[in-house]
């Protein structure tokens, strides 16, 4: 269960969002500049809104009214950034283990799940875009997060890598239990992964739809995930 209520003004631009969702994958869908990444930053604790309350599974991460604001380092939110942000001076193995908590996650299982085995000794600079993104996802998962934040995880990838990472994400959804918030401005991505969709524009929630409703709103049959090529 994710509860999110935020208010913040940046000059002319205002964020005023109130959301509550208990699905596995909640998508924040909307055009660039709608304030979606800001919402993720606020959940992760990297951005402090002027007013708001954020709780995940009952754990209050932020409540400005009660003066609660857990620091990012203690929130246990796995954040997969749009720009990857792998640590360039560490190899893939050290990147994956960076956020590891004692006995909290099974490295072998995650490495297996994301097909990272052959990459462990490599440096981030030598990875392809899709590989980088998979490592970033693995790194976030290994920090045993309460929730996973995925910020445009497929943007900037070429078609083949996109399909591949999408396939891995579906696999994660099948095999892991962690809740996720997906930010995207691609309807097909959202349709493929989300159980519920909050449409965000100009810092506000225009509508909150379930997956079927989102498919209909797009003007077609209920969304079915596009077929993806088998895992490499």
């Amino acid at each position, binding site marked *: 269960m994710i509860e999110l209520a935020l208010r913040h003004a940046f000059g002319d631009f205002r964020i005023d969002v109130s959301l509550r969702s208990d699905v596995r994958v909640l998508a924040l869908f909307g055009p660039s500049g709608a304030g979606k990444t800001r919402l993720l930053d606020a959940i*992760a*604790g*990297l951005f402090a809104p002027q007013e708001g309350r954020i709780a995940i599974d009952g754990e209050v991460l932020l409540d400005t009214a009660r003066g609660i604001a857990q*620091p*990012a*380092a*203690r*929130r*246990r*939110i*796995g*954040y997969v*950034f749009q*720009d*990857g*942000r*792998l*640590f*360039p*001076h560490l190899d893939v193995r050290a990147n994956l283990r*960076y*956020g590891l*908590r004692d006995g909290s996650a099974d490295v072998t299982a995650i490495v297996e799940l994301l097909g990272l085995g052959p990459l462990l000794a490599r440096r*981030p*600079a030598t990875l392809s*875009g899709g590989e980088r993104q998979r490592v970033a996802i693995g*790194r*976030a998962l290994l*920090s045993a997060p309460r929730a996973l934040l995925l910020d445009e995880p497929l943007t*900037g990838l070429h078609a083949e890598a996109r399909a591949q990472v999408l396939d891995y994400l579906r696999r994660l959804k099948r095999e892991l239990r962690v809740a996720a918030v997906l930010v995207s401005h691609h309807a097909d991505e959202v349709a493929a992964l989300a159980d519920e969709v909050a449409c965000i524009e100009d810092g506000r929630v225009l509508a909150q739809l379930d997956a079927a409703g989102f498919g209909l709103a797009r003007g077609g049959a209920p969304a079915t995930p596009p077929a993806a090529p088998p895992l490499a």
Partner: protein
Amino acid sequence: MSLLAPDEWQALALSLRVGVLATLLSLPPAIALAWALSRRRLRARALVEALLFLPLVLPPVVTGYALLALLGRHGPLGALLAEAGIVVAFRWTGAVIAAAVMGFPLLVMSIRVAFDGVDRRLEAAAETLGAGAWRRFATITLPLSLRGIGAGCVLAFARAFGEFGATISFVSNIPGETRTLPIAIYELLNTPGGTPGVHRLALVSLAVAFAASLLAMRFMRHAAPAGEARR
């Protein structure tokens, strides 16, 4: 070896020792100050920066005199130290202090530029992975700044190695104790028949300076990638 006279070796060894110790001594406070200037909002930033630059813009002789006034036997700090049995004025340890003060601004500036060059988004990523401030600094900021820190150390060493003005006014010119290489050259210049010695020591200075310069360029050219740039 007969390349240099014994007292010339002594001066060279002293200058090298002063240069190395001054750099190592100033490194921890320089890192702390550079980090604060790069990452913190300081209310007194302008004042701190002005003070930091002082040794660069002040005539070195004045800096040396200020050290003498402060740390000399009758200075406020010097008197306290003297009670504890520590004397630095007119000692080689004082030469280390003078050299450290003179090199400090260069060290802080280089390290600060290196810290500024580290992608803050990487530190934010480390934070979401549970790393507190110390761990972020030790595992992200510092390793990604090593080359800049190295370049700063070379600059500070070179500055300390060649220090003259502050050293001579703070610890004077005592053979075997405070007569560093530049002071030995000055001494030889004022000694009849000292010219060959001047040439020898000038050549040695040139070699040390050239090596330091090469090293600094090496650090700077291979400046670490400032984080994983956008693809």
